[in-house]
Each structure stands twice: as C-alpha cells, then as structure tokens.
C-alpha cells in the first residue's frame, strides 16, 4: 500500500502548479478566494487561457482536443486548479453537453458544437428541473411536438444555472406522453437561447445572487437536427450524464484551500485575548473538519486507484458527493462562526454586496453553499442510489 503519488505524478503536479502560478490572473484568483460572483467575461477569460494552453477539456478524446491524461493526472489537474483558486469551469458545455455529443451525437452535431465549446464561443446551460420535477426528474412535462422538420416546445424549466448568460440550452423534453413508463418518451434537445418564444426570468437566491433562473418555452421551434440520440431515448442520455456530473464533487483541492483560509482567518480572531485557534470549543470543531477532509482525500484516492485499475465509476461516486458537499458546507459554517457577530454584515447600505470584502462575503457564502447538498442529485437521492446499487436494498 502506498498513499503517495508516484514520482511521475508528483512531477506532473509540480508542472501544473507552476503553470497556474504564472498563468492564473491574480485579480481572478482574488475574486474567487473572496467568494465573489464571477461575470461571464471573467469565467470565459479563464476558459480561453486554458483553451490556449490545450488544457480546457482534458477528458475529451485527443482528436477533439483532449490531453490524453490518465484519471490520476486529470484528478491532479482539477485538484490543483481548485487549490490555486482558479475560477470554476462551468460544466454545462465541457463536461455535460460535450460528453453527450461524443457518446450519442451525430458527426454533424460533433463538428458543429464541439469546437465552439472548446474555444468558449458558446456558453451552455442545462434544462432539466421543472417546477414539479425536481428529484423525480423523469416526471418532467415540458413538451416537444413534432411538426415536419421541427419540434415545437412548450413548458417551463427552473433552477437553470446561468441561463441569463447562456447562448444554448440542452433540455430534456417529453416527445411522447402516452407511454406507461415515465422514463420513456423523453428526448434530448439542443436549443438556441435566442429562439423566439424563450423567456428567462431571474430567481434571486437568499444571498442576493443571480445564479439561477426560470426558463419559459412558448411555442419555441427547434430543428429536428438538434435532437441528440433517438427520439424517446432522452432518459438514456440523462442517466449517462449523471455519472459525469458527479465526477468531481468531492472537490478536495478547493476545500483544502478554504480550510487553510479558515485557519488563517480564525488565527487572527481574538477571544478573551487569545487566538480563536486556541479556544477549545472552536478548535475541536476545526480539527474534526480537517480530519474529515483528510479521510475524504484518501477515500478519493482509493476511488481513483480503482478507476485507474479499470473499474468504471459506479454508485460509489455518490459517497464522494455526500461527504464532499457536507465538508464544503461545514467550511462556510465555521467561517461564519469564526467571524463572530460581524459576520452578519453583508456590505455597505446601498452599495454593491459583491465587493472584495471577505468579511462581508461570509454570511452570503454560508447561505449560498446550502445549495450543494441539494443540486446535482440531492444528497438524499445519492443515498437512494447507494442503497439500491451498492447495498442492494
């Protein structure tokens, strides 16, 4: 048993780390580290820097621009980016639409969309959840009725992340509502956000952020050539994608960085003249969190080791999602606690709450990160998956 990386893997990590040190713009890093909300321009600036380096889509096949890295290298790259404070890469194009096109798309679809996703020409969003279809996704009702070489789409999506920035949306729609199984009769469509009949309405979250939206479809016409895979096979596509969506939710690198920030922050707080790190009640909470993250990092390595050995990612990924998000939330909770009563300050009255004041960002961050145990398959859904597929219950 060897818990450390090989010499080659260390060298790879050093290379990535050195590259990040010179190529990650400090202004972007500072905004990420202070929990700022990034604009589309800021997100795409980082996207294009990585694309120019050839590192924007490591997991893709090499003929489409993939790096050919193995799973350990891919993981190390993501961990280093998170640890360095690089802006998150929006998964909707790179890690969701693209894998679907590569697996199920026609040659024409691949040629049309993949290079634009790679370069960052198109910004994608995901049209899955509906007002009455959250965890029970297969009950979705947004309809697509075939009319010649077009589908006519009517209905509503909700919680659509960054739809207000998006050029395209991939959607699960119902093309046949007469079938017994709700998973049947669903299709996967790519829809241009500029299409007539699409309305995007912001949903402001409790931290004041505009991240998610409602998207309304009112007789929106979509060319049949924008359907991926066969009509009625949308659920097959969705299930394939769910495995991808959960690949990096452990987010060990990001949590390691935030833990260091928490320690530095707590060390500077005073209670009865002493550092908060020397206050036993707070210190024990911090230690337990650090230990949980240590355990998760090793569980993640064990998972990678199995993956490298040829075992496909299975339901075990759900475990990483559950633990990873619990830790992410706990980090924000302890930051809030460390700040004491001033954590309640969220910014100057009448001013922009999205400034560069770390203290003012803590409470909104705590609020915002409650989403992590809900999105991408709530942690309860993850437990259902584990119960069924790992435990056989």
């Amino acid at each position, binding site marked *: *048993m*060897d*818990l*450390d*990386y*090989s010499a080659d*893997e260390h060298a790879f990590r050093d290379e990535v780390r050195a590259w990040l040190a010179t190529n990650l713009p400090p202004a972007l890093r500072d905004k990420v580290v202070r929990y700022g909300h990034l604009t589309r321009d800021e997100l795409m600036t980082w996207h294009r820097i990585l694309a120019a380096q050839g590192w924007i889509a490591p997991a893709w096949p090499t003929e489409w621009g993939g790096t050919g890295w193995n799973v*350990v290298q891919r993981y190390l790259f993501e961990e280093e980016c998170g*640890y360095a404070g690089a802006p998150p890469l929006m998964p909707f194009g790179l890690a969701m639409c693209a894998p679907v096109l590569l697996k199920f798309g026609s040659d024409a679809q691949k040629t049309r969309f993949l290079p634009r996703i790679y370069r960052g020409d198109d910004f994608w969003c995901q049209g899955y959840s509906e007002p009455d279809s959250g965890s029970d996704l297969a009950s979705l009702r947004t309809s697509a009725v075939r009319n010649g070489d077009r589908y006519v789409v009517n209905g509503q999506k909700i919680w659509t992340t960054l739809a207000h920035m998006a050029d395209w949306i991939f959607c699960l729609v119902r093309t046949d509502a007469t079938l017994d199984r709700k998973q049947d009769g669903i299709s996967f469509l790519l829809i241009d956000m500029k299409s007539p009949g699409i309305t995007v309405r912001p949903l402001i979250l409790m931290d004041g952020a505009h991240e998610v939206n409602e998207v309304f479809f009112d007789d929106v016409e979509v060319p049949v050539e924008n359907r991926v895979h066969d009509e009625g096979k949308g659920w097959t596509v969705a299930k394939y994608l769910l495995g991808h969506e959960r690949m990096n939710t452990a987010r060990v690198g990001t949590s*390691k960085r935030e*833990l*260091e920030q928490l*320690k*530095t922050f707590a060390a500077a707080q005073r209670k009865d003249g002493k550092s908060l790190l020397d206050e*036993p009640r707070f*210190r*024990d909470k911090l*230690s*337990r969190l*650090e*230990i*949980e*993250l*240590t*355990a*998760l*990092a*090793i*569980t993640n*390595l*064990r998972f*990678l*080791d*199995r993956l490298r*050995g040829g075992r496909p990612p299975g339901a075990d990924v759900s*475990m990483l999602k*559950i*633990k990873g998000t619990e830790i992410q939330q706990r980090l924000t909770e302890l930051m809030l606690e460390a700040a004491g009563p001033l954590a309640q300050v969220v910014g100057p009255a009448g001013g922009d709450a999205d400034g560069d004041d770390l203290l003012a960002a803590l409470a909104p961050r705590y609020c915002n990160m409650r989403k992590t145990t809900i999105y991408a398959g709530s942690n*309860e859904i993850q*437990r*259902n998956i*584990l*119960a069924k597929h*790992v*435990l*056989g*219950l």
Partner: protein
Amino acid sequence: MNFDRTEEQELIAASIARFVERDYTFEARRRIVASADGCSEDVWQAMAALGLTGLTLPAEFGGLGGGAMDAMSLMEAIGGALVVEPWLATVAIGAQLVARGGSDDQRRSIIAAVAGGARKIAFAHAEADARHAVEHVATRARHDGDAYVVSGVKRAVPHAAVADTLIVSVRERGGDRDADGLTLLLIDRAAPGVRLDPLRMLDGTRAADVRFDDVLVPASARVGPAGAAHPLIGAVTDFATALVCAEAVGAIASANAATLEYLKTRKQFGVPIGAFQALQHRMVDMTIEHEQALSMASLACATVDTERDPTVRGRMVSAAKVRIADACRHVAQESIQLHGGMGMSDELKVSHTFRRLTAIAQQFGDADHHLERYAALSGGREGSP
C-alpha cells in the same frame, strides 16, 4: 499511489480468513470467552503455526518482519471475528517494545519465543489516574545496588493473567505526569511481590489489576534506556493504535454486514424492513462510515510504518483515532437500533461487536483525547492536512 495488497499480504489475508472461518466461529468464540482463561491456547498455537505470532517481529529473530500495513488484514479479521487472543498485547506491544528497545540478548530470547508461540507478554502500563495520558506513571522504581525495587498498581492490564512476562512502565524520577524519568522493566508474572486481581471486560476479554509490592528486578531486565523510555512507549503505542484502527474497520464491516442482512430478511408490514427509506439512508451512512474509517486506518498504518518524525506520526495517528472512534460509536449504535429488539440480545453476534466497538472507541485514547493531541501537535502548522 497503490491500495492493492502485496502478494505476501494477500497470502496472509487468505490464511487468516480460512483460519477464522474454520476455527473461530461465533460459537467457538463463545466457548472460549466462557472458559477459565478466557482465551484459547489451541487458537494461539494455531496462530503461531500460521506465523501470525511473529508477523510484525524482526525476521532475524524468527518473525516475518512485517509492519502495520502487513498486519492490517489480520487486524480486520480479528475485528470481524472478535478474536479475544492476546495478539495485540503480546506481538504488537510487548514483543514490539523488546524489538525496538531491547538488548541483543533480550531480542534473541524473547522475540523468538513469542514468534514461536511459546511466550505471551502483557504491557502493564495504565494507572488509575492516567485516563489516556501515555506519560502518566506513578509506579515507582528505586535503585537497590544493581537492581530495581518496584512498587505501584497498574489498572486493568489486558491479558495479564495469561501472560508469562509483564513489561512494566515504572518511574525512576520526576512527577507522575513527567515524560522524563520512565523506564521499562521485564517482570515475571509469577515473581514474588506481584499480585493479580483478574477482571472481566465489556468486550469479553480478560484483564487484571496488577499490584507490585517491593518487587526486586535485576538491571538486566530493563528494556531500552533508563529514565528515557517515553519515546519508545509513545512510538509503540502509536503503532498499536494504528493496528486497533484496522481492527475497528473489520468490526465495523462485520456489524454492517449483519445489519444489511437483517434489513433484507426481517419482514414487517409485509415487506423487508430494508424497503423503508428511513432505514436505507441510515444503512448508507454506516457504509460511508466504513469507507472513511478504512481510509484513516490505512493512513495510520502507512504512517507508523514510514514516518520518522514523531510529531507528524502522532498527529496522523490521532487524526485516525478521532475518526475511528466516531465511526465505532456511530456504527455500533446504529447496528443495534436497526436490529430492533434482536440487537439487544446476547445471542446475536452484533451485540458482541457493539461491545468491542465501544471498547475500541476508548482504547489508547478516546476521541476527545486524540482531538486534543491532534490540535497540540498541529500547533503553528499551517497548510493542508
């Protein structure tokens, strides 16, 4: 990065699994626990025949030369089958202290005898007011010519009554909690002035309070440096702590397997109770506890085998023990709850696993003790875990 077992480790794991399945059924264990000694000489000799009594002892004295990582599968099997034999006390602590600190003569005679199954050792260390502090020793040793004269009381010494030899921590100087001043002495269990009061422990194992009344010990019985044995005791305690973390992983796996089986077979309201989501999610959380515990046991065993810096070593072992203690408590309590009334019954193995998990949570220090030690050893240490 590699989490696969080596070929040797696979062989050890396979032979232990065969042995446990054939000779250490739950019914066999029940008879052993109820016997006069509370453990079995037959089982001990069978373990010796498999080489297990020398697994972590130096090859030059008849052992197999393995480390904690090599002993993980043994410890997991011990935890799974609730083996009550004095393997940890004799091989992982007693003989390990001799292997690391003993003279050539001591190593030659004692390690070979332990590896061959001819000798058992108990570590007489813990005292009434020590709680979990390794440095707390009030038992005194004064000099009388070339010899030591030992007086004091050791509490609940695991397996003392079946041990041939006690390895006893004594204080030559200083206050009861000073790290300086500690010495280790080999004392025959039957030596004049040594008195044992046997005890039964929650997990079915035996122990004894051991009283030393002016026991005369020759200087040649000293293991390691005079008055400076604390680093040796600390290193071997970390070694044993890492191993007991691996034992916990085996016991947790056993409790989880029994509980999962029960969820699938016990029917209420016309369906297996495992069909209920409230129970499914609790079973999933127990499974996650097992994964996190296995990760930390692996980290602890790898650390005690390879880490030379005692601060880093202690910090990682304490991290593991905090996590393991939490997992022990969580899984033990949930396994009983999900078994319902049956879980309370002495007839079911799971209630015995509950007792062992409860003991492991406290053995070598509970979660609070190791949280405090972890924080103390992390002092001024910024950076990733």
